[in-house]
């Protein structure tokens, strides 16, 4: 489903060039559960942002579901993102003035889905992620774990085939973190592709495929036998 070939990402800071990704090539099949680990500054977030079409590589080829997406315009990328990709962030990134329900609804609102259909999906998502009794709460009235569940429900609202999570447990205690991972893994069990960036070896080890980045290049690509 995903094919990266020779991806380069260079950031220019003044005169200096920071080589964040150096020739990354990676194939990810539909339904894979993947963790990306590596030292700080090794390019994990950069890789995830490129996978999620939030960032563009300076060189290389990116095929998503058989379609070359490197040449698409910003708005086309936004549409692909909306239809096929769900993001989960370390800092949740919920809109503080909106309720849990309204936050979950955002991608559907942006996609222009009609209110009745939205309501139907919303009820299912709230039930799926155990948020029924928190639907009307604002983020500041929710615990960290609940916030992250709201964020995951939001990522899932458009029925994406690819879920990208950048240190989703980074701001949670161990127990809550494992809870959140269990929720993410449900997506995987339902057939979705999940990629998780993490610093926690215990979290990383839960994935069936573990990639290790060092200095912007893939140093290790481990696949568990079935």
């Amino acid at each position: 489903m995903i094919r990266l070939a020779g991806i380069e990402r260079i950031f220019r800071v003044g005169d200096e060039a920071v080589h964040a990704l150096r020739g990354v090539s990676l194939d990810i099949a539909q339904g894979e559960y993947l963790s990306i680990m590596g030292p700080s500054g090794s390019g994990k977030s950069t890789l995830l942002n490129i996978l999620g079409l939030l960032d563009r590589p300076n060189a290389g080829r990116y095929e998503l579901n058989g379609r070359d997406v490197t040449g698409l315009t910003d708005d086309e990328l936004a549409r692909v993102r909306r239809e096929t990709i769900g993001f989960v962030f370390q800092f949740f990134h919920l809109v503080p003035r909106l309720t849990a329900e309204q936050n979950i609804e955002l991608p559907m609102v942006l996609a222009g889905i009609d209110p009745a259909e939205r309501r139907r999906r919303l009820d299912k998502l709230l039930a799926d992620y155990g948020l029924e009794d928190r639907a009307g709460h604002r983020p500041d009235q929710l615990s960290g774990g609940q916030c992250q569940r709201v964020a995951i429900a939001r990522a899932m609202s458009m029925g994406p085939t690819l879920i990208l999570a950048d240190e989703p447990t980074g701001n949670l205690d161990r127990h809550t973190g494992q809870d959140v991972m269990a929720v993410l893994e449900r997506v995987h069990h339902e057939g979705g592709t999940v990629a998780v960036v993490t610093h926690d070896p215990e979290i990383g080890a839960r994935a069936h495929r573990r990639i290790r980045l060092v200095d912007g290049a893939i140093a290790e690509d481990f696949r568990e036998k079935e």
Partner: protein
Amino acid sequence: MRFGDLLRFAWQVLGGYRARTALILLAMGIGVAAVVAVSSIGEGARLYVVNQFGSLGTNLIIVLPGRSETAGAMPGVLIGKTPRDLSIDDALALKRSPAILRFAPLIVGAGDVNAGGRVRETPVLGTTAEFIQVRQMDMGQGVFLPPGDPRHSQPVCVIGSKVARELFGTRPALGEWLRIGDRRFRIVGVLARQGQSLGFNTDEIVVVPLAAAQALFNTEALFRILVEAKSREQIPHAKADIEEILRLRHEGERDITAITQDAVLATFDRILRALTLAVGGIAAISLAVAGILIMNVMLIAVTQRRREIGLLKALGATGAQIRAAFFTEAVMLALGGAACGLAVGKLGQLAIGQFFPDIPFTAPWWAVLAAPLTAIVTSVLFTVAPARRAAMLDPVMALSKR
């Protein structure tokens, strides 16, 4: 994104930043209220003048001695030497014009009016029976001056309602005698109350026959001739006839001025309209200031809401959607401000109306339309730059913890 959702989203933003929203509404509201209030004062003044002129009579032409270069402008702005007087014969000659329905020669002076031991100084008007029809006044009691040859007069007079009250109190004035100078007049009528009309209060006058006034003030010269044309269409013909008849009578000299009511009205109308527009325009500057305030606030919002904008983009919002969100917010602010402003402007207008009940303060339609429109246009214009900036925000940068 659906339109309803766009509105709801903007509504939530406005509700989320109450102080900011209130501030912009205030600025917009003040601007719109200022435009409405100021222009309704100007419009009120215009309508007041128009009504005052209208109350003089219809299809009216005023003939005065002397040549005024800009016919139709303010009367009395005369140039050249002392003009030839207008005489009763001049007035009577106007009968020849088929476009003229009736006319009333006029002499104006002031006299001490005595009755029953009380004395009062009032304006005294000398004229003929036609005057009441030309000026479209009503009688309160009795009759107006009797018709007849203006060169001969009967010793009768008509008095204003205030004069009647002051000289006779509650006693009936009809049939009583009063004395002006050394002449005695029997009161045959009392004018209906009419009040102020172009600085001339008809409640405070005494009307005597033309010949009597000539004797009283020892003059042959007429102050004015009021002419009523047969119809609105006949006014230009009547005016031309008057000028021609009097030119022939004055040995070919054009030494009179005929002012049509319409011309005077049109001049006042133009001046006051322009004035209203000008002050309305000045008030509209405050709207531009409100627009700049909106831009400032929106630019701050882009910085403040970086994360949110980045998030929306990560969730699949296109640049157009981000821009639409900002513009919706701006238009809602403008509409809200305009609504507040119109309401406050209306209240202000009612309040001023309490102090000047004679003046019909009404906001002209163009101000009621232009003020909110200007509010919307300025706020949309001043949102272009912030919205662009928001739409171009890099989501990765916006979402990063730094």
